[in-house]
């Protein structure tokens, strides 16, 4: 069966510090991978998606970047965090076009102070 891991679970970082969140998927190959952010009072917002190694698409302009160095690894990064980057970050994987259903990781709660 497929599983998706994220770490760390919780992170408190000062403004201006770098960020690296990691997501890995097991039990499937060539998944579509997604990063979402859930801020207080808002729905899940898609940040990035990837259909393959090295292929990243960004949905909204922001202070963050994503990379996919391996088939089942997805990394979310920032060089300098802003207060507005605080939120709950969720990684998800899906099987592809028209299949819709996505499976979410346990999430990382990021607080920027």
């Amino acid at each position, binding site marked *: 069966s497929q599983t998706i891991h994220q770490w760390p679970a919780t992170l408190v970082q000062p403004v201006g510090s770098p960020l690296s969140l990691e997501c890995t998927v097991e039990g499937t190959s060539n998944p579509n991978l997604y990063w979402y952010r859930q801020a207080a009072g808002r729905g899940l917002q898609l940040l990035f998606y990837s259909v393959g190694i090295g292929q990243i698409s960004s949905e909204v302009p922001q202070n963050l970047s994503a990379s996919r160095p391996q088939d089942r690894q997805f990394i979310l990064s920032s060089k300098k965090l802003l207060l507005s980057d605080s939120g709950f970050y*969720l990684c998800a994987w899906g099987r592809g076009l028209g299949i819709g259903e996505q499976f979410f990781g346990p999430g990382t709660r990021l607080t920027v102070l």
Partner: protein
Amino acid sequence: EDKVVQSPLSLVVHEGDTVTLNCSYEVTNFRSLLWYKQEKKAPTFLFMLTSSGIEKKSGRLSSILDKKELFSILNITATQTGDSAVYLCAVEPGRGADGLTFGKGTHLIIQP
């Protein structure tokens, strides 16, 4: 721009009651609508709907889609305290692997 609106945003009912959660959407080239339940962390998948008028059912939960009026409802009968969660509605556009567009969710609280 794709848009998903859920109502109500918050709902408090007593155990045993029946609830109906609403989701309306505007999306380019609709492909599917999905419902998720989010308790403390990761949303868990409930239903995916692609065709109008066909009810999907799982135990006490059921959902139906109206593609003409662009909305879906999620029904929960004989609610239990374990049903307390945020229920998220999302739509999948028919344009590549763009990911899902989510509503803000309905925060459902079931009181014993």
